[in-house]
């Protein structure tokens, strides 16, 4: 399949403060998705997002007292991408693919791009 942008995705990493803090300081701009381990042992996407500093954003999510990350085992993967417009467009594409449980609504983006999600 031809994509408008070819993203390079990270491996699936455990979503813990320790793993998140291994990410480059100074901020990786890009998109990410969080998945939860279910009874069959597989990880299923429950949240997608984008940030100018992924490390900071994930730490924020982890620190939320009433957040969805409080129960269960979670993993994440990310892909660097520059520019808010592009990030939002990828976020929208991921949302449509996964309809993640903890994203309340479809991200808004006027830009239509097709990227690889793996």
């Amino acid at each position: 399949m031809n994509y408008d942008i070819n993203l390079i995705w990270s491996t699936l990493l455990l979503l813990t403060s320790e793993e998140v803090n291994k990410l480059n300081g100074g901020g990786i701009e890009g998109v990410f998705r969080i998945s939860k381990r279910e009874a069959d042992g597989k990880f299923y996407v429950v949240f997608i997002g984008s940030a100018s500093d992924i490390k900071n954003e994930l730490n924020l999510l982890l620190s939320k007292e009433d957040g969805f990350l409080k129960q269960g085992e979670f993993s994440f993967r990310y892909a660097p991408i520059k520019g808010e417009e592009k990030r939002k467009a990828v976020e929208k594409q991921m949302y449509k693919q996964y309809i993640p449980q903890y994203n309340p609504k479809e991200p808004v983006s006027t830009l239509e791009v097709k990227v690889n999600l793996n």
Partner: protein
Amino acid sequence: MTLVIGLKTKDGIVIASDSQATSDLTSNDKVQKIFAIGGSSAVGISGDGGLATYFLDQIKEELNYSQGILHLAEEVRQKGKAKFNDFFEHLSPEKRPKLSLVLVGYSKEGNPEIYTLRSEDNFVPRKCVIGYECIGVPYIADYILTGLYETEIKMNAAAEMAVLCIEETARQGGSGVGGETKVAIIDAATKTFKQMPKIDVERMREKAKQFQIVQKSRYYPEDPDSGTGNPTI
């Protein structure tokens, strides 16, 4: 094509339709497909729009509305059969145009009822036993309503559900369903037909756009072997 939906609810009846008509030559998205008849009942039509409107104009003056919906359904059957035989006596039954009706209203005892009548079946009324009926292009609406509809539903929520069914059907290209969505209610308390304001229907259409299949991610598990240790742009 058309989608007309009638739903019984705890506090009344909802009837909704799209408003698109398509022929080989033209397309119009402002066609009326729901008509009040007798003040406390309504009919939704699917089929040749011009024929349906003329057919209704012909029979509705002769109907007796005071005996409840069961009596009305029987009258529509008799008059419908007679009119069709008159209109199309030159055609064998299988070559005649097809017309389907959803008839909604209250029984003499005050219970909400829905009937479907089809020209190819000599307008024999079929009483609704599941709480809702769809005519025209019913497949998506039937699927959604099978999953979501409960007899405990209230009128406003049922109106939203009907709008969702029409929106989802219209979203599938080639269904011929589209244009403005029309919704009407017949409140159980007043037994009065009332068209819902356009602004309320628009709000329901916006809400319908948020409808999603929430378990979709279950079909796309993360691949633990993909990805790279140090991704870069």
